C-alpha cells in the first residue's frame, strides 16, 4: 500500500496520513489511470467512489491552478450535486487549494447561472438537464474550451432511462468542443459492465475498474408467526415483526414497491408503535419540502426508520443505516443488490438485509431472489438503440446554440454510445421533423422551424430559443396536481396523478403523507382536502403502472418451482401449498406452458402460467380474450400477475393452442395497439420530448383552462392522416418494449415451442387460488362498460334530484 501511496503527490499523501485514511486500491487506480480517455469504476454502494473520482482533479488543480472550467460532474440528483459541493469543501480547504466549486441545477439562481457562463468555476456540478441547456447557449464553445475531465456519477441509474441518452448526446457535443477531455463513469454493481462501458465511450473502448465487492451480504427472509396472506402487495401482516427489527437496529430503511403501499405500510407501522419511535415516510408523491425534511432528519440521525419507495434508491449516503428491509417481491435482483448496499456503508462490513414477501407466491420469488443475490446472478435487459425523440430534442438545442451542418452533427451524434449505429436515414428524418414537422403533407411552406441557409441549419425565428429551452428534459412525470388542506396555511401535502384526481368525488377519502384526508374540491389545479377522523381511506392509487419482475428472476422462480429438492428452504406453509399443487395438478416447467381449466360456480376459468411479467401477461390477457370473443367463448374478465394469467368466462376452453398462436397474436396486437390508451400515453411522452407539444409556455397562466388540446387528439389525427410519421414510429417501438412488453410474450412462446400441458382440474388449484383474490381485474370492454357509465350517470342525476 505504501508503494501505491507513492503515486500520490506528497501533499496528498500527508493529507491522507493526517486524516488517518488509507486510500482504497480502486481510488489509487483512478489516479493512475487519470489520462485514460474513458474509464468506468464499478464499486458497491458506499465504496467512497465519488470523492475518489475527484482525486485526479484535485491533484491536477493543486499543481496547475489555471482559471476556467476543469472538471464537469453530472449526477442524476440535484441534491447529490449540492452534497458533493459541501463534501469537497473539506479536502480543498485542508489541502489549501484555491479553487471554485459550484453547482448548477434547476435550483440555481438566474444571476448565478449568468455569472457561471461568463466566468465558469473550476469544478461545475450539474444534472443532465442543466447540461443540455448549457450546450444550447451560443457561448458553450467558450465555456467548455479548456475542459479536462467529465465525471458521470450513478451512471448505472442514468443508463436506465432517456436521461442517459440525452446526457451522452450532450457529452459528444462536449467532445467536439473539448476533444481532450477524459470521461469517468461511476457505477454501482451492474450485470454487464462492458455494455455500460460502451454506453459511456466515444468509440474507443472504455477501461473498466471493478472494485472489491466486499463481503457477501447478510440477507434472509423474514419469517413471521402467521404466514403471509394469499394475495396483496401491502405487507401489513408483517408490521409487528418489522417493528421488532426496527427496535433492534439503529437505523432501518424499509423499501416498498409502490407509493400507495408505502403510505399504507407507514400507517400500519404507526398503528403499532407504542414507543413512538421516530419513523419517517419518503416517496415521490410527497412535496419537495416534506421529502427534504425527512432527508434532513435522516442525515442528523434523528430517525430510526424510513418507509420509502425507489425515491431513495439513489442519493446521499447515510453511514448509519444498519438494516435494509425489502417489503414485497424485489422484482429485480440488480435493484435489490443496490438497495441492500445502502446498509452499512463502511466498506468491509457485510450489509444486512431482510426480504418480506407480501403474499404466498412472493415467498417463492423472495427465495429465488435471495439465491440470485448470493450467486451474483444479476438481471437486466440490454439497452435498445438511442431513442429518436431524445435526438430530436438534442437537434433543436444544437440549433439554439447557433446552427449546425447536418454531416458534422451526424458524425458527432454517432460518437454517443447509444447512437453509435444510427442510420443516416433516421438522422435525416429527425432533422426534417425538427425543420418542418416531418408531415407527409408537404404543401406547407409555412411549417418551418429550421431554415437551411448555405448548408447551415438554424432557427427561422431566434425567439424560439426560449420556448425550446423551456421544454427540454426527458423526465416525464405523470401529470400531477398538488394536494392542499383547505383554508389555513395552504401547505402542500404532496401530489396525486391528475387521472386519480379526476376520479375523486366530494366525500371520498384517500391517504397522503401518512394521513387520511377528505376530498373537497378541485380549485385552480389544486386538490383541496380537509382532515377526517375516518381511518379507512378509499385507496390512493397514485401510480397506475407496476414494475414487472425481470426476465431472469422469472426464470429462476420457474426453475425453482420445478425443483422440489430445493423446496426445503421455504417455510413449511409454502412447502405444503406447493405439494398440494403437485397432487391436484402439476408444477409449471420452464420449457413448457402449463394451462389449467376449472369451474368455479357458473364461471369457467383458464389459468396460463406464462412467467413473462405483469405487463406482458396483461397484454396477453387483452389479446387472448379478444380472440375468445371472436370464437364465441364469452370471456368476462381476466387478471394478470407476474407469473400467471387467469381468464374467466361462460364457456370452458378445451383447446388452448389456437389461442396462443404467435402469428395471430401479433396480428391482433397491431390492431389493438392502434387505439390503445397505452399507445396514447407513450405518444404523449415522445411528443413532449420531441417538443411537438410544449409543456411550458412563456407567461402561462394557471387559469384551469387547458392551455392546449390533449395529445390524444394529435395521436388520433396522425393515426388517420399520417400513420407513418416519425413520432408514430417512435411510439410503436417504445410501446412494444415498455408497457406492452410483447417481446416477452414472443420469447415465452418461442421457449415452449407449442409444448402446452392442459390440466382439467376438478376445482380451483392451489397455485391458481391466489389469482382469484388479486386486485386489478380487467373486465372485458364492450357493452358492459357503456352500461356502467349509464348507471353511474343516472345515479348522479337521481342524487341531484334531476331527471334526464
Amino acid at each position: 500500500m505504501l508503494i501505491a501511496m507513492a503515486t500520490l503527490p506528497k501533499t496528498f499523501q500527508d493529507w491522507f496520513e493526517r486524516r488517518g485514511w488509507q486510500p482504497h486500491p480502486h481510488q489509487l487506480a483512478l489516479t493512475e489511470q487519470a489520462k485514460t480517455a474513458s474509464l468506468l469504476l464499478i464499486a458497491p454502494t458506499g465504496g467512497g467512489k465519488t470523492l475518489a473520482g475527484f482525486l485526479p482533479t484535485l491533484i491536477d488543480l493543486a499543481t496547475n491552478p489555471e482559471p476556467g472550467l476543469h472538471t464537469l460532474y453530472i449526477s442524476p440528483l440535484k441534491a447529490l450535486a449540492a452534497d458533493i459541493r459541501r463534501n469537497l469543501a473539506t479536502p480543498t480547504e485542508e489541502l489549501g487549494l484555491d479553487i471554485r466549486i459550484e453547482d448548477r441545477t434547476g435550483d440555481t439562481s438566474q444571476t448565478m447561472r449568468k455569472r457561471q457562463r461568463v466566468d465558469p468555476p473550476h469544478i461545475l456540478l450539474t444534472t443532465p438537464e442543466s447540461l443540455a441547456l448549457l450546450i444550447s447557449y451560443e457561448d458553450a464553445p467558450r465555456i467548455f474550451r479548456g475542459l479536462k475531465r467529465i465525471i458521470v456519477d450513478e451512471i448505472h441509474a442514468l443508463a436506465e432511462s432517456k436521461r442517459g441518452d440525452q446526457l451522452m448526446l450532450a457529452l459528444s457535443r462536449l467532445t467536439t468542443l473539448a476533444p481532450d477531455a477524459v470521461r469517468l463513469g461511476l457505477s454501482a454493481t451492474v450485470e454487464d459492465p462492458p455494455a455500460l462501458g460502451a454506453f459511456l465511450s466515444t468509440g474507443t473502448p472504455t477501461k473498466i475498474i471493478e472494485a472489491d465487492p466486499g463481503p457477501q451480504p447478510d440477507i434472509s427472509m423474514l419469517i413471521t408467526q402467521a404466514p403471509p396472506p394469499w394475495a396483496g402487495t401491502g405487507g401489513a401482516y408483517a408490521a409487528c415483526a418489522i417493528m421488532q427489527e426496527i427496535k433492534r437496529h439503529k437505523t432501518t430503511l424499509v423499501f416498498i414497491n409502490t407509493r400507495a403501499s408505502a403510505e399504507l405500510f407507514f400507517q400500519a407501522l404507526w398503528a403499532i408503535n407504542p414507543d413512538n419511535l421516530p419513523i419517517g415516510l419518503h416517496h415521490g408523491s410527497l412535496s419537495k419540502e416534506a421529502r427534504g425534511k425527512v432527508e434532513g432528519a435522516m442525515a442528523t440521525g434523528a430517525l430510526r426508520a424510513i418507509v420509502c419507495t425507489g425515491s431513495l434508491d439513489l442519493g446521499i449516503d447515510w453511514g448509519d443505516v444498519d438494516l435494509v428491509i425489502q417489503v414485497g417481491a424485489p422484482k429485480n435482483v440488480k435493484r435489490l443488490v443496490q438497495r441492500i448496499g445502502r446498509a452499512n456503508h463502511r466498506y468491509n462490513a457485510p450489509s444486512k438485509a431482510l426480504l418480506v414477501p407480501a403474499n404466498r407466491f412472493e415467498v417463492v420469488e423472495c427465495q429465488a431472489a435471495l439465491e440470485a443475490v448470493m450467486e451474483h446472478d444479476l438481471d437486466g435487459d440490454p439497452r435498445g438503440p438511442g431513442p429518436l425523440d431524445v435526438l430530436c430534442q438534442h437537434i433543436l438545442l444544437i440549433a439554439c446554440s447557433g446552427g449546425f451542418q447536418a454531416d458534422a452533427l451526424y458524425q458527432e451524434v454517432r460518437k454517443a454510445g447509444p447512437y453509435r449505429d444510427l442510420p443516416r436515414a433516421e438522422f435525416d428524418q429527425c432533422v426534417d421533423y425538427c425543420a418542418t414537422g416531418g408531415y407527409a403533407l408537404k404543401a406547407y411552406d409555412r411549417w418551418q422551424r429550421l431554415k437551411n441557409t448555405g448548408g447551415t441549419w438554424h432557427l427561422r425565428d431566434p425567439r424560439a430559443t426560449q420556448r425550446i429551452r423551456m421544454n427540454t428534459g426527458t423526465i416525464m412525470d405523470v401529470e400531477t396536481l398538488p394536494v392542499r388542506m383547505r383554508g389555513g396555511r395552504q401547505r402542500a401535502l404532496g401530489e396525486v396523478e391528475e387521472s386519480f384526481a379526476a376520479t375523486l368525488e366530494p366525500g371520498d377519502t384517500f391517504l397522503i403523507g401518512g394521513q387520511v384526508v377528505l376530498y373537497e374540491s378541485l380549485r385552480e389545479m389544486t386538490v383541496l382536502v380537509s382532515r377526517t377522523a375516518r381511518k379507512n381511506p378509499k385507496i390512493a392509487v397514485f401510480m397506475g403502472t407496476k414494475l414487472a419482475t425481470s426476465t431472469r428472476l422469472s426464470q429462476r422462480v420457474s426453475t425453482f418451482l420445478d425443483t422440489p429438492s430445493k423446496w426445503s428452504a421455504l417455510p413449511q406453509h409454502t412447502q405444503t401449498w406447493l405439494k398440494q399443487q403437485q397432487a391436484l395438478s402439476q408444477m409449471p416447467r420452464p420449457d413448457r406452458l402449463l394451462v389449467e381449466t376449472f369451474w368455479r360456480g357458473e364461471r369457467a376459468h383458464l389459468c396460463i402460467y406464462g412467467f413473462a411479467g405483469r405487463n406482458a401477461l396483461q397484454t396477453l390477457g387483452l389479446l387472448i380474450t379478444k380472440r375468445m370473443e371472436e370464437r364465441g367463448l364469452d370471456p368476462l374478465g381476466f387478471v394478470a400477475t407476474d407469473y400467471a394469467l387467469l381468464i374467466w368466462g361462460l364457456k370452458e376452453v378445451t383447446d388452448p393452442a389456437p389461442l396462443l398462436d404467435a402469428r395471430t397474436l401479433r396480428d391482433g396486437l397491431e390492431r389493438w395497439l392502434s387505439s390503445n390508451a397505452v399507445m396514447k400515453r407513450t405518444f404523449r411522452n415522445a411528443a413532449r420530448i420531441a417538443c411537438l407539444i410544449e409543456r411550458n409556455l412563456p407567461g402561462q397562466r394557471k387559469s384551469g383552462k387547458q392551455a392546449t388540446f390533449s395529445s390524444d387528439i394529435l395521436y388520433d389525427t396522425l393515426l388517420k392522416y399520417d400513420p407513418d410519421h416519425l413520432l408514430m414510429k417512435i411510439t410503436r417501438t417504445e410501446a412494444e418494449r415498455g408497457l406492452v412488453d410483447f417481446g416477452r410474450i414472443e420469447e415465452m412462446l418461442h421457449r415452449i415451442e407449442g409444448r402446452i400441458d392442459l390440466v382439467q382440474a376438478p376445482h380451483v388449484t392451489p397455485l391458481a387460488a391466489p389469482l382469484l383474490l388479486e386486485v386489478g381485474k380487467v373486465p372485458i370492454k364492450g357493452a358492459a362498460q357503456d352500461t356502467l357509465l349509464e348507471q353511474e350517470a343516472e345515479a348522479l342525476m337521481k342524487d341531484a334530484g334531476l331527471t334526464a
Partner: protein
Amino acid sequence: MFWHDFDFCSAQLRALPAGALWWGDAKLLCVSDLHLGKSERMARRGGQLVPPYDSLETLIRLKDLIDQHDPETVICLGDSFDDLTAGQRLDANLLQLLATLIAGRKWIWITGNHDPGPLDIQGSWLAEFKQDGLTFRHIAQDTSEAGEISGHFHPKASIRGRRRPCFCYDSRRLILPAFGTYTGGLRASDPVIANLFDSTARAVMTGTKSTVIPLRAA
C-alpha cells in the same frame, strides 16, 4: 337513444353526440368554435409544428353531419377561424370542400373573438342571429333574455375519469361544446361557466352517445 332531446324555450332541440345542435322543426344545424386554420396559426406564431390535418378533419366531421341531416340553415357560432389570416390562408381544397357544404343552404357565420370581421367566404356574417325566440351569439351575456345559445367557453365534463366536450343548459341558456379538432377546454363546473347557470343545469357529454349529468358534477 344516442342523442339527447330536450325542450328549450319552447323549441325542441337535440344535442348530437358529435357535438352539434340540431333543431328539427327549423331544419337548423348549429356548431361552435371550429377554429379552422389553428395549426397554421400555431406554426406561424410560435413555431410549434402540430400536424396540419385539423381543418380537414373538422370539415369532414361537419360534412358527415350535413349529409345526415340535410339542414336548410347552418349556424357557425363564432371562432370559426382561428384568426382572420388563418381563414385567408386555408388551402384551396379545403375552401372547395367548404363551398360545397355552403351551397344551397342558408349559412350564417356568427363573428367571434378570434374572427371578428367577415372573410371572403360565402354566407352571412353577423354578430348575432334571432329566430323564433332563440338568440345565437358567440359569448353568453351576463344578463340576457331567455333563449340564448352561445359557444366560446369550450366546456368539458368528466365522469369516471373520462373527459369529453359537453353542452351546458338550463331553462334560459345553452352553451355548445367546441367542434374544432384541436380545441382545449374548461371544466363545465368551473365558476366561469357554472355561474352562468342555475342549479337545475345539466351537462350533456359528447362521444359515441350523449350522457347527461348535473352541471355541478361535471
